[in-house]
């Protein structure tokens, strides 16, 4: 029974990380109908930036808390900057191109960023310091739940709530929803659509960076390739929940996390990624609209 709970907790933790990345996918898709293939790389760059600054700041003699806060903050800032730049270079010139063009461009961007990090840094796995402090009060329950799990679950929940609030109630949120529903009409009521799209990429990238920092310190090592697999899994989560839907992305991510957790726990850990890919293929074939998605009617 304890093993069962362990798997659930593991699944939820894993799912929460996927959720942070999936949110970016889903937001971008909702607004420009593009599978931002390079999103996983943004997450990877977030993790690398965090690692680099952690080392530098530690060497400079900052204390532990300051290192964590500053490094995470810098990772978020840099990832957002990358997200913003990627959109400007690879997607914006293709706003009115046929659908496959920006997708190919996105794949190219993803390969480019992977190799950029590979060449500028290293192809080896780098050990990533555990940034998450041990909480005293958790010690007695250590065998059930650790502070990393708590921090991850908490961060995702807070991010989720803030994002929902932003989209539901703020001016920019309303502009985002309007742009997603009818881009030209949004322009006609005075929304600066290009800026809204940039902001969407920035927010999505920031969330991905957060995910990058959390997972890296949880797993303990990173390399240039982590973005690819994580990206596909987050995309699976987004599609599973219904791409374009914010709660859908979170739900999909949790389902995926749990599936993986149970599949590796009870079946075999060799095929961990196969389960994720298999799930992706099955959903796209049988329910492309996802759990919470709206099926797009064919327009003739």
């Amino acid at each position: 029974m304890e093993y069962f709970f362990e798997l659930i907790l593991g699944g939820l933790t894993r799912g929460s990380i996927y959720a942070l990345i999936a949110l970016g996918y889903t937001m971008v898709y909702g607004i420009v109908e593009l599978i931002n293939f390079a999103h996983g790389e943004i997450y990877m760059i977030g993790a690398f930036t965090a690692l680099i600054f952690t080392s530098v700041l530690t060497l400079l003699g900052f204390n532990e808390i300051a290192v964590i806060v500053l490094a995470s903050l810098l990772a978020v800032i840099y990832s957002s900057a990358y997200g913003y730049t990627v959109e400007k270079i690879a997607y914006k010139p293709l706003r009115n191109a046929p659908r496959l063009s920006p997708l190919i461009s996105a794949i190219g961007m993803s390969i480019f960023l992977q190799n950029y990090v590979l060449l500028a840094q290293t192809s080896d796995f780098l050990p990533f310091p555990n940034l998450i402090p041990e909480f005293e009060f958790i010690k007695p329950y250590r065998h059930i739940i650790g502070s990393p799990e708590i921090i991850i679950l908490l961060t995702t929940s807070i991010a989720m709530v803030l994002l929902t609030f932003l989209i539901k109630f703020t001016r920019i949120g309303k502009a985002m929803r309007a742009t997603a529903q009818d881009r030209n009409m949004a322009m006609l009521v005075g929304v600066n659509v290009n800026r809204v799209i940039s902001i969407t990429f920035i927010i999505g990238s920031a969330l991905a960076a957060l995910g990058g920092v959390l997972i890296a310190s949880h797993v303990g090592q990173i390399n240039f390739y982590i973005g690819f697999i994580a990206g596909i899994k987050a995309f699976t989560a987004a599609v599973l929940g219904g791409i374009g839907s914010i709660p859908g992305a979170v739900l999909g991510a949790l389902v995926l996390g749990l599936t993986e957790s149970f599949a590796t726990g009870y079946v075999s850990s060799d095929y961990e990624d196969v389960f994720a890919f298999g799930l992706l293929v099955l959903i796209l074939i049988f329910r492309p609209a996802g759990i919470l998605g709206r099926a797009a009617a064919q327009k003739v």
Partner: protein
Amino acid sequence: MSFRDDKIQEIKKSLLVSIWFMFLTFPIMVIRVNPIEKAVEWRWENMLVVGIGSFLLSFVWRYMLKKKEAGEKRAEIGESGNTFLIQKILEEPRFCIPLLITLTIIAVAFPFIFSMYQTNIMTTALMYVVLGLGLNIVVGLAGLLDLGYVAFYAVGAYCYALLNHHFGLGFWSVLPIGAVLGFIFGILLGFPVLRLRGDYLAIVTLGFGEIIRLVLENWNEFSFGPSGIANIDRPAFWDFQFSLQNATIYLYFLMIGLTLFTIFVVNRLQNSRIGRAWIALREDETACQAMGIDKTRTKLTAFALGATWAGMVGVIFAAKTTFINPASFTFLESAMILSIVVLGGMGSILGVIIGALILILLPEYLRVFSDYRMLLFGAIMVIMMVFRPQGIITNIRRRYKFNE
């Protein structure tokens, strides 16, 4: 605004871009940490490179964007501006025939003039030409973005490796089996996914490709896992086994033959009833169906035919390297073949050939490029999509003649 002001504006813009990129690349390019030894290496020279590089590139970028807009304008007014020199040459028989003769002589003489190493590289390049042409049927003609193309390549390679390892079957008997197996896998994988929308199709094929690779990696009893299969037989001529050098030359000519065969077939397909249906399908699916074209079947044909070629080249790959393992069949391989098609020009046979030769040979001969190979491929995909989505060579189709 005067000309001078314009220039100052441009320089200001580029300066901003340059500063932005220096900021952006600062952590990744400048700092390198060694977490184990807790050492940090500062590489400020890189920042300079990025700064100057992005400053200059931003001029080029803006210039190309402007040129592209101007090109679009011209196309709208009705002038066809962008005909490439190569196309003009090819349309002129005066140049075309001597060119073909020269090419033939070079192709035949190549292995006897150059070293075995060079011949090997050429054979590899030709393999990518054929892979590119195969994928071109799927992506270029039928407009189906297949990101798992390498899966069929793996099917072919493992087909030969396993049949050779277990049953000692030779190259020539497995080549058709590989082709057929590719075709069958194409249909099996294609059938459930081909009704998906373009971008979803791309992701699903990617997923399928990765699943096949992961299975090969983990199913040790079947595929010998990550360690792969070694000592695969080189192709023989009937029963005669070649020396290593002659085998290389033999493979080279075999690839020349396969390339010519592929060009012939793709060209014929392109100008046939089926080829027209593919192109129409790419342009408007609904209209196509309303015209009586069976969407699923037509797409499936393209998908399976593409897979057939991947299967064949897979067999040749296994025979050429005599050792295969799952690491040769990653997503990056699919992406590389895709960038060949994208660079060359989707749907254009000549374009794909040129694209493959550039992308495979350039990194081999220019050391600078070989390290940056994948970086280059990624960049090419972005740059081509932004500035010249039709590729180097715009696809020119046959004009139909009619009798009054």
